[in-house]
């Protein structure tokens, strides 16, 4: 069909010149509102809504002190996920890219996070009345980068065999050359278990706080959130993007988005997020522009679902 024929054909549908019947728009809208309201109330009364309490750095440090100290040590030497993330948090890497497109890098570092300073050293410096702790921090800061790396590497290896005390207030590791790290981490653990680190990570230039980037990034580097998410079927590998805590329906409309993460190459690619975003961007644009896409726009004409939709009309027309 030529473009002219298609436009002429399309023009026939511009205005309906056939029969009409009485219709009460306001009445229909009112009934629809009543039906939906009743349905919503019924679903709410029967199923309510989920509300799992949030984790805190304090609860994490208390329930799994070994994981907390291990994570804090990786923050100190920059080997954590956040430490190597790249933009918008730091310049440790370029971030994800698609061919020659480095949007993550190009948009720059807008929420700077120095994991060693923000998550470990500055909070430790805020603790008063513990001269031994402050001396340990000074010793660490005064050491050469090479020495710091030796201490953190040795300590991280030792933490793989670490044990928490019976009451979870201390972490013990085999004897080794860890420099001031045991003192520093014991101080940080105590600070976190008291709830002090939660507050310290929110400290900024003003009194009111709404930005939880730092505490969430720190907690996400540890295992607490992931463990809870796995138990709730929320991991990416569990189609978690469209799930909800408990047995509630989540963002089911994201099924196609999360589908891509389940298959190769996306499931194994270091650039999975930008690849999936690009695919969904193209598909979203295609959805909007369906009327202009040959083939896709013609399927409804080829596959006569319309016969079902307008069956009364065609029956009345003898067609």
């Amino acid at each position, binding site marked *: 069909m030529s473009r002219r024929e298609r436009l002429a054909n399309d023009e026939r549908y511009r205005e309906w010149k056939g029969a009409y019947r009485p219709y009460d728009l306001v009445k229909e809208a009112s009934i629809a509102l009543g039906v939906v309201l009743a349905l919503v109330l019924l679903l709410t009364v029967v199923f309510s809504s989920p509300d799992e309490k949030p984790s805190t750095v304090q609860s994490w440090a208390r329930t799994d002190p070994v994981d907390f100290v291990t994570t804090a040590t990786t923050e100190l030497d920059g080997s954590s996920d956040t430490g190597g993330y790249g933009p918008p948090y730091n310049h440790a890497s370029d971030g994800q890219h698609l061919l020659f497109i480095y949007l993550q890098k190009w948009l720059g570092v807008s929420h700077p996070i120095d994991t060693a300073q923000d998550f470990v050293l500055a909070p430790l410096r805020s603790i008063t009345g513990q001269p031994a702790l402050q001396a340990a921090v000074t010793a660490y800061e005064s050491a050469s980068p090479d020495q710091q790396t030796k201490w953190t590497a040795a300590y991280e290896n030792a933490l793989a065999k670490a044990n928490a005390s019976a009451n979870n207030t201390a972490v013990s590791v085999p004897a080794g050359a860890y420099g001031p790290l045991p003192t520093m981490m014991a101080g940080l653990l105590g600070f976190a278990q008291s709830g002090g680190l939660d507050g310290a990570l929110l400290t900024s230039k003003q009194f009111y706080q709404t930005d939880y980037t730092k505490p969430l990034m720190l907690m996400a580097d540890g295992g607490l959130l992931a463990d809870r998410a796995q138990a709730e079927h929320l991991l990416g590998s569990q189609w978690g993007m469209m799930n909800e805590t408990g047995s509630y329906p989540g963002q089911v409309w994201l099924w196609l988005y999360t589908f891509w993460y389940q298959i190769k190459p996306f499931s194994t690619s270091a650039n999975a997020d930008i690849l999936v975003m690009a695919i969904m961007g193209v598909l979203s644009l295609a959805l909007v522009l369906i009327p202009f896409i040959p083939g896709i*726009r013609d399927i409804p004409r080829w596959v006569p679902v319309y016969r079902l939709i307008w069956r009364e009309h065609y029956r009345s027309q003898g067609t």
Partner: protein
Amino acid sequence: MSASEEHSWTAAVRERAVAALPPEKLLSDRQPTYVASWIYVFGVLSLASLAVIIGSGTILALKGPGWWHFTGVGHFFNGTHLWAVELFFFFMIIHLWGKYWMAAWRGGRVGVWITGAVTFLVAIPCALTGYVSQQNFDAQWISTQAKDAMNAAGIGSFFNLLNFGQMYSYHVLLLPAAVVGIVIAHVLLVRKHGVVPPFTVPSTGDGADASTPAREEVSS
């Protein structure tokens, strides 16, 4: 020059608006006879769900973001908000599929399709910002996971899912305003152009063209 002789911007806007959408079209009390299928109710059900979302969301916003966590009444309204959102997407997706199979963009109705599809796409971040504004474990997990896609696309530099204050603003004002605005445009376009007529098919009966039946009023 008198005021009546001057070109009035107000009069021009009114005349164009009325010409494009006269009252009898805007609130029409008749509709084509072919509008006779259950698939047509999903559009108005989507609108009704949106109204319940706005209503329940307004109550939650009036009481503040923490209210629903520690009061039974607040938790109830949070439930209505959640289920209205679930129904909204359910109805809207069926509505979109229905309109696809009708090829509802025909006859100069491309704008109707585009505004409908864009509504769906804008509603997704609107819902996402709601999920990350919940201040519970769900919000913690979703925000820390979804940030990677935002960051990878460069969006994360100015749209930070971990910033509760920013997400709450997006959720209670900016994105709902966008959804409602696009929906209003969508509904006005539907009222202006009318519901898309059926495909023309060859007649097997009296030879009449299915798309051009006799112009007559019939009672329902």
